[in-house]
């Protein structure tokens, strides 16, 4: 493939903002017919936003998109499909209660003269498509009975039925076995030979070198680098991914380390985690780095008694802790700020006060009855301590900004005076000011002797805040670092392979 070929897709200066975040910042990207372009970047670098603009789910704020040299606007998924762009999401969109043929032709079933669906024609056309993707299955098979890899093939067949010129695959190999991945790569090569362009989103370096012609690296919403795979080293890609400056992030202050507060030994769960062990001392912040899907949140959920464990021991202050449900974890002095504050942490329709006291009701009650004065005092204390910007304690939390909502979640657990505090992505999606405040708060808590576990996908945050860093990859602990002297590149290197 030569650079003289006219690009199939060209994006120029594409920008997109969401409240508080610039998700894409003047991104330029070319994709040529018959090439495989690997799109890589850290979590939150803008890959999914870019993809959603191409699929017509989001509209760009600025910029131009050209398909085969012609300017196009992609206001909705249908026009994107018509323009020849197909997307295969990581979470597959197959309708499991329908057959393969019905899935492929949903919404555009061939109609016979009598006004009913022409099943024979549908079957014939589906057959041809399945042959093309080498899926030797009956077209009447229920999609729900297929494996993930087979469902992916159905989606590819569907993309072909649209005469897709550009197929975007979002981490298609993440749930495939090695053999299935090889089959997928065979199909990708065949598509490529037919002149279809493939954008392949992946975290796996090995795959990039196996399948990609070029690599495009996104970082903080900007196109950090594009390079030819054949004259690129893995380290080049990694340094392009992590080039973010640590800059003026808050750095944890020194705190005296005490005894081991929490120790986890050989934790495994069904299908997800394998033999995970770690410990954290009081006064210490233990960072967990890794890519999305590495299993970090799953570890925390299992430790806190949310998800069942298959094996493994949890020790709190050296003693075996029987944590089978969340209430047990609470009694052992563990607090947990989950990764999704709206879904997992807040009762959005409840007031600031009631959210803050929810995990500490025993502390503000006399017997069975809530002492409303004590409850208000508790909430007032944390509103001023954490500087939560809210018009009153009676404000519903859904009306607060993301940063203030997160402070309410943290207050909820501080109210319970935990010995161990687990924070899963505590600063995701909040503004810089609130982020700094939360970092300072974590540092203060550590100084007061709280043992903190910090899960974060932002390497500068992990490096700045942690005393030690554990790196996870595909459900296992890959290794650990002392914070001193470790670079983002070293951590990323461990996290991707």
């Amino acid at each position: 493939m030569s650079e003289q070929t006219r690009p199939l897709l060209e994006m120029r200066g594409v920008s997109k903002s969401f409240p508080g975040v610039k998700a894409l910042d003047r991104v330029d990207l070319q994709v040529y017919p018959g090439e495989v372009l690997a799109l890589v970047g850290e979590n939150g670098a803008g890959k999914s936003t870019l993809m959603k603009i191409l699929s017509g789910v989001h509209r760009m704020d600025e910029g131009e998109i050209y398909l085969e040299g012609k300017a196009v606007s992609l206001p909705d998924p249908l026009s994107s499909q018509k323009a020849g762009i197909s997307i295969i999401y990581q979470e597959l969109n197959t309708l499991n209660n329908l057959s393969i043929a019905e899935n492929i032709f949903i919404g555009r079933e061939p109609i016979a003269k009598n006004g009913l669906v022409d099943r024979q024609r549908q079957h014939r056309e589906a057959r041809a498509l399945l042959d093309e993707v080498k899926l030797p299955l009956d077209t009447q098979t229920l999609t729900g009975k297929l494996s993930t890899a087979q469902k992916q093939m159905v989606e590819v067949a569907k993309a072909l039925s649209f005469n897709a010129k550009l197929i975007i695959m979002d981490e298609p190999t993440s749930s495939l076995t090695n053999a299935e991945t090889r089959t997928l790569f065979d199909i990708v090569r065949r598509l490529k030979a037919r002149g279809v362009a493939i954008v392949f989103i992946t975290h796996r370096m090995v795959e990039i070198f196996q399948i990609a012609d070029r690599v495009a690296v996104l970082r903080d919403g900007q196109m950090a680098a594009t390079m030819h795979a054949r004259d690129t080293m893995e380290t080049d890609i990694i340094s392009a991914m992590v080039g973010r400056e640590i800059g003026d992030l808050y750095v944890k202050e020194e705190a005296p380390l005490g005894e081991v507060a929490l120790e986890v030994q050989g934790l495994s769960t069904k299908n997800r985690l394998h033999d995970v062990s770690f410990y954290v001392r009081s006064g210490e912040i233990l960072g967990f780095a890794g890519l999305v899907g590495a299993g970090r949140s799953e570890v925390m959920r299992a430790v806190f008694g949310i998800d069942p464990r298959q094996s493994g021991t949890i020790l709190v202050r050296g003693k075996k802790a029987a944590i089978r449900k969340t209430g047990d974890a609470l009694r052992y002095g563990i607090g947990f700020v989950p990764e999704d504050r709206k879904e997992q942490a807040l009762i959005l329709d409840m007031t600031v006060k009631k959210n803050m006291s929810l995990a500490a009701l025993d502390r503000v009650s006399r017997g069975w009855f809530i002492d409303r004065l004590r409850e208000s005092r508790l909430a007032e204390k944390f509103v001023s301590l954490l500087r939560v910007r809210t018009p009153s304690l009676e404000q519903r939390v859904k009306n607060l900004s993301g940063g203030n909502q997160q402070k309410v979640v943290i207050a909820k657990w501080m109210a319970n005076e935990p010995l161990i505090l687990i924070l899963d992505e505590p600063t995701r999606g909040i503004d810089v000011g609130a982020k700094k405040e939360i970092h300072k708060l974590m540092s203060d808590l550590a100084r007061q002797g709280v043992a903190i576990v910090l899960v974060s996908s932002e390497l500068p945050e992990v490096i700045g805040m942690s005393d030690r860093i554990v790196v996870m990859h595909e459900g296992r602990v890959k290794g650990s670092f002392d914070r001193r002297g470790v670079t983002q590149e070293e951590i990323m290197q461990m996290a991707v392979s």
Partner: protein
Amino acid sequence: MNPQDKKTNLSLWYRNSSAASTLTILLILLLMSTALAIAAPAFLKASNLLSTARNFSAIAVAGIGVSVVILTGNIDISIGSIYGLAGVSVAMLMKSGWSLVPAVAAGMAVGGLCGLANGLLVVYLRLPSYIATLGMMQIVRGVCYILTQGYPVSGMADSFKWIGQGELMGVPLPIYFMVLFALVFAVFRNRTKTGRRIFALGGNEEATRISGVNTKALKILCFVLAGVCAAFAGVINASKVGVAQPTAGNGFEMDAIASVIIGGSSMGGGVGTVTGTLIGAAIMGVLRNALVLLSVESYWQTLVMGVVIISAVTIDQLRKARR
């Protein structure tokens, strides 16, 4: 604060506050009553008002109970059958020589057990509450028929009639029971730890669980409470009639649930007040009374009730959607 802000705050309050919701339906009740008083002055006679209140008190008691289940985002449609079974059980026990108080306590325990079964089905078999309680509705009704062989139970000691027919200071006893249940549940829901956790569970179950709350036990408790309340409502009714019918409470669940919904509770959970449910039950009671006073053919009554349920909820929706 400039006047503009003040206005916005007021309209915000009007849209969001549950007190505003209660006020709206109270207004509907008052409007209905006024219209009825004009059309049929007999409505305002003390004896008519008291008997109307007595007639909706069973609905209110069962409604208060099932509102706790609705608060968690679930539903219990077996309460009509529980209402029937409780009446039958208490009547049979008294006929076999039990005295009033232990018999009523046993009847409420039967209701509690039915609720426990509902809760276990929903929590451990993960059945949708609508399905679990649909099944229980049939099972419990079946038990009523089996126990009675289909015949009404009568011939109890006179004390049986006390709960439904007795009076204190000229006011029928069921009204006292209704007020008592309302007070106890209002305090339970708003002032106790358990009550607060039920609201939280209805607002966001996962977040509540992650806050260290045993959400399974909590949900089961809610079904038990609904069962106990429905049972007591069934006892009030059987005592009022003086006979325990195995068919008693057929369709009663819909009246109780309607009073909760008219009262401003959200079927999605997390929102609702006891006062609202009381007013909801009152609206249903006044409406029944109106149809009787205005001599509307009884076949039309059912139809009108349906229209009122839809209108009351629509008005509440409009209030919330107002910009």
